[in-house]
């Protein structure tokens, strides 16, 4: 069959400040058969988005296509003038960007934006386009397909918005769809729904697609063919099965390894002699935003009755989807947010709730590392200044002694001491995150609160940071409170794992117990939603539909199970009437649920059975 899209010898260059040509991508070539999905995969800076945009004849400001041949359908993209290109974009070739939230205009209804490409390119009348949009909404499994178009972007969830953007792209029946990291910003449980919807419509419409991603496991579900890019060069091209099972290139293998981090042995988890009091003991914390009401809960409650302990030298993982209160927990422990109720103890000594009452020594012992190193480092301070401040502040080190210690710290985080004079803007994402970590280490803390420290990084870079955390812990006998939404990361580094759902702690278990059921039903959903490096996984993962129950009576819902509305094993008359008990399962997991081992194992088997059929 004649390929639908052909690219050969594509080179895109940028002009540097001193007038040198820099090749962003070099000599890229591939072809896609009609109706196939090709994946471009690589870490950030690999040039995957540049290649994808070049298919539309578009390059970002400062770049230009130096040489190469691009054909989409009948059109030779590089021969077209601006007007023909404009007619083609959003019409014959559609683009779905990473952040749907940023791509929609918040002040117009969804429908008016979804049908806009059809109206602009005059492929359909308004009525036809709207009818077609409703059909697409239905195919994409959006709720209330007839009415969702009349809502505004902020009135639907992130996953729904991403699917609505797919509808916008498909409204003109394009021959080629480019999906640029469309699920990267979503939670795993949402991602799986979006991936299913995308796959279904792409298959049914017979659209040729280019899927840009850094996540091999996602790509394995979506693509027929994979192109692995690194630093603007193609490392490997092949059918998905072949690349997944017999990767030929070293770089592909390193990507595969990074995608599923191996567990790091804790080694030093043996409690020290002073194990009478745990290092960090969080007791019954309730916290939130807004004024505190008469019953002792804030107006916008975020956390409710959180009880966790971290032993010296061990790591506690906190996992949950966005909005579950993970970051709020870290902020409460760090003192940035006063809890409404509950107490925090550090080695048996009570930590005052607010910043103003804590002593410098207490500050030193608990350090926090934020997710986004771009905003966590002051853009106007050099690395030496960023690291020097905690040294001066806590340890009164200055002058030569401080410089020496900064060099030691940089060595500890495996960075050359020459970067000390650089500003954060001159570092790569991974380097910034290391500096972010080093600033916490400079205080010589006993526990570091790591808030999603690898989430903003590529898999390869993120895996290196995890490796570093594990090494530091061995060398310095540190404890971590490790917050993440990624269960495989948490499983790789943590001794104990606590699962948060909507501000409640629904499960607490040692790492080993996260490998086999029974789990809390929500944990089960989380575990099952993590894409596996196995083509065909997406189709075989079960999604049990919750049984019908009566709505809990008004005002009684407060202490009921938070997961009630999504739970596949909820029981009418129990789950919607009685608050769930906190109890221990046979193998040692503590869960907040009415169910016992047997039902939960049955639930898990049901999910896996669907998969094995």
């Amino acid at each position: 069959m004649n390929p639908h899209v052909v690219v050969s010898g594509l080179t895109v260059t940028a002009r540097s400040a001193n007038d040198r040509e820099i090749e962003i991508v070099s000599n890229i070539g591939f072809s896609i058969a009609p109706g196939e999905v090709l994946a471009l995969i690589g870490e950030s800076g690999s040039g995957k988005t540049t290649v994808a945009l070049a298919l539309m004849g578009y390059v970002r400001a400062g770049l230009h296509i130096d040489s190469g041949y691009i054909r989409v359908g009948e059109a030779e993209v590089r021969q077209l003038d601006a007007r023909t290109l404009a007619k083609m974009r959003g019409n014959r070739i559609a683009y779905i960007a990473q952040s749907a939230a940023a791509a929609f205009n918040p002040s117009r209804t969804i429908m008016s934006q979804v049908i806009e490409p059809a109206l602009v390119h005059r492929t359909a009348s308004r009525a036809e386009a709207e009818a077609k949009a409703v059909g697409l909404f239905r195919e994409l499994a959006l709720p209330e397909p007839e009415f969702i178009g009349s809502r505004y972007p902020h009135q639907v969830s992130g996953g729904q918005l991403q699917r609505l953007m797919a509808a916008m792209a498909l409204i003109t029946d394009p021959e080629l769809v480019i999906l640029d990291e469309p699920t990267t910003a979503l939670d795993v449980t949402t991602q799986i729904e979006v991936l299913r919807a995308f796959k279904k419509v792409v298959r049914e419409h017979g659209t040729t697609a280019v899927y840009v991603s850094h996540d091999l496991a996602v790509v394995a579900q979506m693509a027929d063919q994979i192109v692995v890019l690194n630093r603007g060069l193609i490392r490997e091209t092949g059918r998905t099965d072949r690349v997944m099972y017999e990767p030929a290139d070293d770089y592909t293998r390193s990507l595969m390894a990074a995608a599923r981090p191996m567990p790091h042995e804790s080694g030093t988890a043996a409690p020290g002699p002073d194990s009478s009091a745990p290092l960090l003991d969080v007791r019954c914390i309730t916290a939130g935003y807004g004024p505190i009401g008469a019953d002792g809960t804030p107006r916008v409650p975020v956390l409710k009755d959180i009880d966790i302990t971290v032993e010296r030298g061990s790591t506690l993982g906190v996992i949950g989807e966005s909005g579950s209160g993970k970051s709020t927990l870290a902020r409460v422990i760090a003192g940035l947010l006063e809890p409404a109720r509950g107490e925090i103890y550090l080695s048996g000594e009570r930590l005052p709730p607010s910043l103003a009452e804590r002593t410098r020594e207490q500050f030193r012992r608990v350090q926090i590392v934020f997710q986004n190193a771009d905003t966590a480092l002051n853009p106007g301070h050099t690395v030496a200044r960023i690291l020097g401040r905690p040294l001066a502040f806590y340890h009164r080190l200055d002058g030569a002694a401080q410089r020496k210690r900064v060099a030691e710290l940089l060595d500890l985080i495996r960075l050359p001491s020459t970067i000390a004079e650089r500003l954060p803007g001159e570092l790569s994402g991974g380097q910034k995150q290391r500096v972010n970590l080093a600033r916490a280490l400079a205080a010589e803390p006993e526990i570091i609160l790591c808030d999603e420290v690898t989430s903003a990084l590529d898999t390869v870079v993120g895996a290196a940071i995890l490796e570093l955390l594990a090494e530091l812990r061995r060398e310095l006998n540190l404890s971590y409170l490790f917050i993440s939404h990624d269960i495989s990361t948490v499983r790789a580094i943590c001794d104990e794992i606590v699962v948060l759902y909507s501000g409640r702690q629904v499960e607490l278990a040692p790492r080993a117990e996260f490998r086999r059921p029974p789990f809390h039903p929500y944990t089960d959903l989380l575990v099952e939603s993590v894409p596996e490096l196995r083509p065909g996984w997406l189709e075989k993962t079960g999604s049990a539909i919750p049984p019908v129950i009566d709505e809990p009576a008004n005002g009684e819902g407060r202490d009921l199970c938070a997961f009630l509305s999504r739970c596949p094993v909820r029981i009418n008359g129990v789950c919607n009437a009685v608050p769930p008990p906190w109890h221990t399962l046979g193998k040692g997991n503590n869960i907040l649920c009415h169910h016992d081992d047997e039902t939960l194992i049955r639930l898990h088997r049901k999910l896996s059975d669907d998969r094995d059929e």
Partner: protein
Amino acid sequence: MSGAGAVTRQQSRMRSFFAELPLAGKIGFALVVFWLAVAVLGPLLAPYPVGAFVTNDVFEDSSIHHWLGSDYLGRDVLSRLLLGARYTIGLALGGAVLAVVTGTALALFATVNRGWTDEALSRFMDTLISIPSRIFALVLVAAFGSSLLLLLLIAAIIYMPGNYRIARSLAVNLNEMDYVQVARARGEGSVYVAAVEILPNMLNPLLADFALRFMFIVLLLASLSFLGLGVQPPDADLGSLVRENVSGLPDGALAILAPSVAIATITVGVNLLIDALPGRTRSVPAER
């Protein structure tokens, strides 16, 4: 490190600062330096005293004796310009510095203390903003009589609340940045957070705001002088020079053109320079 070494480094820093400015910035820099020099050296350079009647002809054209001609009373325009520039530049610079420094300091104070401090200060500034600036100036001049110190204070008081508003909105945003949170979680005090973590990152917009206020003050002084309430004769700031020679306008006399051009070049120069100031991030190409 030796003192001489530090000096040469300082010099080379200055030289590279100038070299890195874009062309517009270089022009602005040259204009600003020129006018600062005029303000400082003006009295030494002026060929005649400020109030001296040097010729019988009014609105004379340029001549070898009077480079910029004579004014409506037959005084030397060049001398009056050289002597007047420092009132405009001194008052506007002083007023703008005073307004921006107090406005920004109060804004940072309000931001790091939040709550009632912020509320009280912000409402007070809103009250000040709501007073029409020209009327406020007229009333004060009428009450206390015109003096240089009073003009300086009036300019500072009128333009401080606007700067406070801008600085506060910048600081409130920066206050929520993760690096400020980190500093707080480290146990840093309010002064450190405000001065080291927040202030340096709002300098660029603040400088732009400073340029705006500088110009507003030049214009305010000019309009006050136009009403005869600014700098008092025989001294004159640039605005007064324009006002007193306004009858020469139909003839296109140099006496009115020269001070107008002077006001224009000062404001344009300050703006070109400030717009061209480099950002906090150095322009080193990041490694790929």
